[in-house]
C-alpha cells in the first residue's frame, strides 16, 4: 500500500495519459466506420466484403499490429501514431458492423416517408437514418470504448506510456499493489467513459427514453376538434 501513497502523482499522470490516448481512436474509429458501415448496409456485394474484412482485422493480435504497421506506413516503431492507428483499426473493425446493423434497424416506412416528403438521399442519411440508428450505434460505441481503453495498455510494449506501464513495471519489480492499481484504474477509466457515453446518448437521443413510458400515456380518445 505504501507504494500507492508514494506514487499517487504517477498514477494520476498515467491515468490522464491513458484517457488522452483512448479518446482519439474511439472518435476516429466512429467517423471511419460510418461510411464503411453504410457500404456494408447498402449493397449486398460490399456487405460480405466489408464485414469479413472487419472481422479479420479484429483477430490480428495487437502486438503483431504494432510491429506490422510501422514498416507498412513508414512511421516510427516507437511512436504514439503507431498506437493511434492500430487502435483506430480495432475500433473500425468493431464499429463497422454496428453501423451496418444500426442502419438496417431503421423502419423502412420512416425512410420511405422521409423520401416522400422531399429529403434528398444525402440529407435523409444524416438527419433521419443516422439518428434513428443511434441506439445501436451507441451500444457499439460502448463496446469500442471499453475495448480501446483496455488495448491502450498494450502500447507500453512499444514505449507509449499509459497505465500499462504499471503492469510491466510492477511485474519487473515484483510490486503487486502497482499491478493491481494499474488494473483498477484501467477499469475505472473504462467505466467513466462508458458512463459518459450513456449520458451523451440521453442527451442526443431524447426520444428513445420515452418509448417505454409513452405507451402507457397514450390517451384513449383523440382530441376534440377545435
Amino acid at each position, binding site marked *: 500500500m505504501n507504494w500507492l501513497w508514494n506514487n499517487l502523482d504517477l498514477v494520476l499522470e498515467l491515468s490522464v495519459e491513458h484517457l488522452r490516448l483512448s479518446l482519439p481512436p474511439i472518435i476516429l474509429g466512429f467517423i471511419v466506420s460510418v461510411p464503411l458501415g453504410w457500404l456494408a448496409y447498402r449493397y449486398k456485394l460490399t456487405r460480405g466484403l466489408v464485414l469479413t474484412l472487419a472481422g479479420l482485422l479484429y483477430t490480428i493480435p495487437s502486438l503483431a499490429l504494432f510491429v506490422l504497421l510501422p514498416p507498412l506506413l513508414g512511421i516510427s516503431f516507437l511512436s504514439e501514431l503507431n498506437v493511434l492507428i492500430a487502435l483506430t483499426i480495432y475500433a473500425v473493425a468493431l464499429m463497422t458492423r454496428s453501423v451496418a446493423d444500426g442502419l438496417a434497424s431503421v423502419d423502412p*416506412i420512416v425512410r420511405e416517408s422521409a423520401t416522400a*416528403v422531399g*429529403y434528398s438521399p444525402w440529407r435523409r442519411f444524416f438527419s433521419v437514418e443516422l439518428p*434513428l440508428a443511434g441506439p445501436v450505434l451507441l451500444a457499439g460505441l460502448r463496446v469500442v470504448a471499453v475495448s480501446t481503453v483496455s488495448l491502450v495498455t498494450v502500447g507500453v510494449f512499444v514505449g507509449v506510456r499509459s497505465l500499462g506501464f504499471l503492469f510491466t513495471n510492477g511485474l519487473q519489480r515484483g510490486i503487486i499493489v502497482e499491478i493491481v492499481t494499474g488494473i483498477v484504474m484501467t477499469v475505472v477509466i473504462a467505466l467513466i467513459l462508458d458512463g459518459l457515453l450513456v449520458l451523451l446518448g440521453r442527451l442526443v*437521443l431524447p*426520444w428513445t427514453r420515452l418509448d417505454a413510458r409513452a405507451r402507457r400515456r397514450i390517451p384513449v380518445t*383523440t382530441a376534440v376538434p*377545435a
Partner: protein
Amino acid sequence: MIEFRSVSKRFPDGTIAVEDFSLELPSRRTTVLVGSSGSGKTTLLRMINRMVDPTSGTIEIDGEDIARVAPVPLRRRIGYVLQNSGLLPHRKVVDNITTVPLLEGVSKRDARARALELLDTVGLDRGLADRYPSQLSGGQQQRVGVARALAVDPNIMLMDEPFGAVDPIVRADLQQELIRIQRQVAKTIVFVTHDIDEAFLLGDQVVILEQRARIAQVGSPAEILANPASDFVADFIGADRGRRALRAVHTDGRTVLIDRDGRAAGVLLEGEPGE
C-alpha cells in the same frame, strides 16, 4: 389538374402493376382510387411524386410532364400522408410539421407559427406540439400526418389509406375532419382506399380499379351507384345488398325508404341537395 396518359408500370421482377392507365384528376377535387389489394393503387399514387417512375406513358401536372421535374423539389410541393403516418419518431410533433418548410428555407419562427395554426386546422391541441409521435394515439398521429402534408401549402395531397390503421370510430371522425378541411383548403386530393364506403363519402370522383389498375368505372358516387358499369362494379359496391339497398314505401303521400331490416332510413325528396 393531374393527367395520366397511357401509363404502365412493370417492376424489375416482371410484375405488371399498372397497364395502360389513363385518367384526368380535376383540380381542387378529391379523386378516390378504390380497388382490392394489389390492384396498383399505391403504385399509381407514387408515380405522381416520382417515388415510382412509369415504364411507359406520361403524367402531367397542370400540363407539365413530371418526368422533366427533379424528384426532390417535386415531392416538396406535394403533400403525402401514409397509413402509419410515417412521422419521424425522433422529431417532436412541431418539428415533424416544420420539416419541409425548413428544408425549403422558411424561417424557424414562421414555420413554427404556421405549424401551430395547422394543429388547429387538423383539430389537435397546441399542447401536443412538443410531444414525440410515440406519445400520441394512432388517430392523433394521422392528424399530424395531415398537418405535415399541409405545411408547404401544396396544391396536391396524396393520401395512401391514411385512415386504414385506426379503429372505426376514430376513422369516421378523421373522415369528417378531412371533409371539413377540404372545404377550407380545396386541394387536389388523390386518396387511396379499399373501403368503398370511404370512397363514396370522400370522393368527388371515384375510380374503381381491377388488377393492373384497369379502370372498371369512373364517376361521381351517385353516377356509379345509379349505374354500375359491370357486374364487377355492382358486386364491388354492393349495390343490391347491405345498407345501400333501400326499398321505397309510399305512405300518406310521401315516400319512405326502408332498409333491409325493415327500419325507416329516411324520406325521399325530389330535387337538388340543399334546396
